[in-house]
């Protein structure tokens, strides 16, 4: 069980925060390009899911699996998107994602008047709180190597 990386996007698609813990493969492009590709993929998945859905959906896209990892997605009504990739053993972590939003993002970014919204988060306090929170998760413990 492990957490690979985490992205936070705002509603315009700029990446507010990125951190990685156990990432073994880089995407083979600059980080800027990777954020854009990730956001583009999520944006397309959102509209794909919206059209494909046979009935009306409320939450829409939740997660996807490939053979090696699982990507969890959470979007607030204001368009902030939190994306975490983990290994396949992790179940639904919707509550954890909403916790990250309400107890870390809102507390240490929105309530910090020196943090501009819609720009990459510089706050060291936010970074360390988020890092501690992720490291404290039950499924964080990295496998050997």
């Amino acid at each position: 069980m492990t957490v690979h990386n985490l992205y936070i996007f705002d509603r315009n698609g700029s990446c507010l925060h990125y951190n990685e813990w156990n990432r073994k493969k880089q995407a083979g492009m600059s980080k800027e390009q990777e954020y854009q590709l990730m956001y583009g993929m999520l944006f397309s998945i959102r509209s794909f899911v919206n059209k494909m859905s046979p009935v009306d959906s409320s939450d829409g896209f939740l997660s996807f699996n490939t053979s090696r990892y699982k990507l969890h997605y959470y979007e607030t009504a204001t368009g902030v998107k939190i994306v975490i990739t983990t290994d396949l053993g992790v179940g639904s972590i919707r509550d954890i994602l909403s916790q990250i939003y309400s107890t870390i993002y809102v507390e240490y970014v929105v309530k910090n008047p020196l943090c501009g919204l819609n720009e990459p988060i510089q706050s060291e306090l936010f970074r360390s709180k988020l890092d501690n929170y992720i490291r404290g998760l039950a499924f964080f413990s990295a496998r050997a190597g």
Partner: protein
Amino acid sequence: MVVFSVYVVNKAGGLVYQYDNYSPRSDAEKTFSFPLDLVLKVHDERVVVAFGQRDGIRVGYAVLSINGTDVNGRHMSDNRDVLEFLNNSFNYPLAIRFGRPRLTSNEKLMLASMFHSLFAIGSQLSPEPGSSGIEVLETDTFKLHCFQTLTGIKFIVLADPRQAGIDSLLRKIYEIYSDFALKNPFYSLEMPIRCELFEQNLKAALEVAEKAGTFGTGS
């Protein structure tokens, strides 16, 4: 319990087969007086609700019929524009039926090739080496299962999130594809599948899968 639809996508991202097994009806009819308490807009040649959810009518629903006569895209059956007709207070009161817009065959082609690229990006952005593309995509209303063969053909099944046994269904569809589409002497590779035996066997496989029932929330 429910399998919604099946898509077969060739290795270039083209849709070669699509079958809708079950599509729930979602219609709402209501009589309105002037002015309308919904905001309507034209989107993709359809008149859809942009704002104002009420009485089972939801944002994104399209106008299906007015006073019982079907609407053809953004025009009425007598070629008048729907929005102009609805803006005219002399036509009221009138009964409008709304519903989730059905996917047109062009939209299905578009969505299939969209998934083709999403599949590739999913594997490119992997934090672990040697990852495949998207195998399961979960939403609150359905789960999409995708199985890619070694030759690059993708079988995609949309099912209820609680539906179990999709993995074996996907392998079964692959088997049916190999037996009835590929062995058909009139079938040319990578082209749309028009083969009765393939369709019959696919339907039978879907029935078997649906009888397998739902086992909890697992895949």
